[in-house]
């Protein structure tokens, strides 16, 4: 039951990760590294699924080969790690040199094929076909030389690939400063690889111990595989984190900003409702928030002829009187200017000397969003807006 839960859970996590990574690969199909990552993850899923005791036994029953699932498990995990080596090759080749990349890919592909062929030959030759050992294959045949050779090849590839990724992650992480989720993802990948190395250490000690006559059942059957499972889980999270977490956080913050902009967007819409993208196209926009920013800027541009130049001074004076907090002052003044311009437009009173609406401090979309959200909030809640409207209304009359 324990192994079914652990290996089944790992397989499910790997399948979810694979689905996400496959989707990423299809979005940028010419990036071979994306496909290599997806392959690495699907091999992990196959490996853990075949290790689930019920599946292990079913494979034996269906094929008539008692422990064929062991070859599937180890072959899949070795393939996963070699696919991992493949994507790292795409990262490190200087300038993405195509000839070097092709050589590196061929080398890694040949290594993978060679490893699988050698492992298959050793598995076939080894006397390990007498009974099904769903959870204790390594323990049961620990003193069979050909079985140990089979495990030795596997452990060699497994450990070398993990050490390779640990070294790369150690080199990459200090270079990444602003992309905190990429850094965290690589850290998870590196830490997961270190944990997974515990499997190699445990298995090696267990096999050597078996030859020395020690009973290493717990280490061989329970402890070492736990390291592999935990390490793989952490590595899979490393594959997910850099893309999934920022996307989720971005979705939440965009939904919040979308709500914040609504009062300002609604107030301005009457200026030129035809400039709202029609619903068919709006639904295709992956980021409606962006459209909302552009629509607000389109409308503010049309409102500009109605913005009197002296409103700024009136609003600043009233902001002092009302003691508008400094953090909200600029946004409140801009909201008041928009309110005054909207009223002037309704009354058909263009300004003799129109002013410009303010630019955000940061000339980026994030800066624009933050600024417009602050103005939108001030538009509905700042006491400065009705105060400036009253003062300027009095001046007009």
């Amino acid at each position, binding site marked *: 039951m324990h192994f079914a839960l652990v290996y089944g859970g790992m397989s499910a996590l790997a399948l979810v990760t694979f689905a996400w990574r496959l989707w*990423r690969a299809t*979005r*940028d199909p*010419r*990036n071979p*590294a*994306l496909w290599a*990552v997806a392959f690495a993850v699907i091999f992990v899923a196959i490996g853990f699924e075949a290790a689930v005791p019920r599946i292990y036994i079913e494979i034996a029953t269906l094929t008539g080969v008692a422990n064929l699932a062991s070859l599937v498990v180890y072959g899949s995990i070795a393939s996963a790690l070699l696919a991992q080596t493949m994507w790292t090759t*795409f*990262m*490190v080749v200087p300038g*993405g040199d195509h000839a070097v990349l092709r050589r590196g890919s061929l080398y890694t592909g040949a290594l993978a094929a060679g490893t699988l062929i050698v492992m298959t030959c050793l598995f076939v030759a080894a006397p390990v076909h007498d009974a099904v050992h769903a959870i204790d294959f390594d323990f049961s045949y620990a003193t069979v030389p050909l079985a140990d050779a089979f495990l030795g090849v596997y452990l060699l590839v497994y450990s070398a690939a993990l050490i390779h990724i640990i070294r790369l992650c150690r080199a*990459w992480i200090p*270079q*990444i400063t*602003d*992309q*905190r*989720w*990429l850094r965290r*993802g*690589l850290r998870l990948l590196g830490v997961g690889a270190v944990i997974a190395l515990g499997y190699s250490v445990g298995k090696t000690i267990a096999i050597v111990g078996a030859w020395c006559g020690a009973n290493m059942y717990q280490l061989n059957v329970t402890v070492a595989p736990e390291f592999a499972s935990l390490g793989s889980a952490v590595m899979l999270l490393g*594959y997910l984190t*850099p*893309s*999934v977490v*920022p*996307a989720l956080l*971005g979705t939440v913050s*965009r939904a919040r900003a979308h709500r914040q902009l609504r009062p300002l967007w609604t107030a301005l819409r009457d200026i*030129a409702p*035809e*400039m709202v*993208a*029609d619903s068919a*196209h709006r639904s*295709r*926009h*992956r*980021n409606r*928030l*962006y459209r909302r*920013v*552009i629509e607000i*800027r*389109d409308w*503010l*541009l*049309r409102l*500009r*002829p109605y913005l009197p130049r002296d409103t700024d001074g009136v609003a600043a004076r009233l902001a002092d009187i009302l003691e508008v907090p400094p953090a909200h002052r600029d946004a409140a003044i801009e909201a008041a200017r928009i309110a005054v311009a909207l009223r002037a437009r309704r009354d058909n009173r263009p300004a003799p000397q129109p002013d*410009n609406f303010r*630019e*955000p401090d940061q*000339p*980026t*979309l*994030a800066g*624009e*969003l933050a600024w417009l959200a602050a103005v939108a909030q001030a538009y509905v809640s700042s006491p400065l807006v009705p105060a400036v409207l009253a003062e300027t209304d009095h001046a007009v009359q």
Partner: protein
Amino acid sequence: MRVATWTDTESGRLVMDRRRLRRELRALELPARFTVPQLGEALARRRGRPLRLRPEGLPVDGLSGGLLVTESADIVAYQRNTTRVHQDHIICHEFGHLLAGHRTVDVRGLEAARLLAPHIDPAVIQRMLGRTCYAEHEESEAEHIAGMLMEHHITHWTPREEWIMPATASPELHRLLDTFGPGES
């Protein structure tokens, strides 16, 4: 002098989607993310003509941007009196027409050219294409493409700063972000 607008010859057809846009950008040999000037240079290479970006104080109730075709160069005029994000969007709208391969119809009118490009000699303008509202199919499609370009490809304006690697970072780190980040989505 001739002035041109985009024609709506295939009313009812689907607008350009992300897949087709990516194909167009790949054909222009652009990376997944780029800047507005880089896109302008790529379009100029394809058209075999220089393409210049020119801020103008355009009337706010008219065109906010447009493409002027002269004998020697294409000029994208865009509204000077707005924010940079908005300006880039206006430019991308014009690029959207070019990417979608919209055909143009000549429209004669000295006044129209003066509205869009008061500082450009009307005598040199052969055709002109402008952004005002997007009720027409072609305008709507160009606006849609501008949105996709800005949201997913124009590096400097991407809303997800987490996914921007500084230009000074090593190619290795750029590839890492391309592989592990969420890509253009």
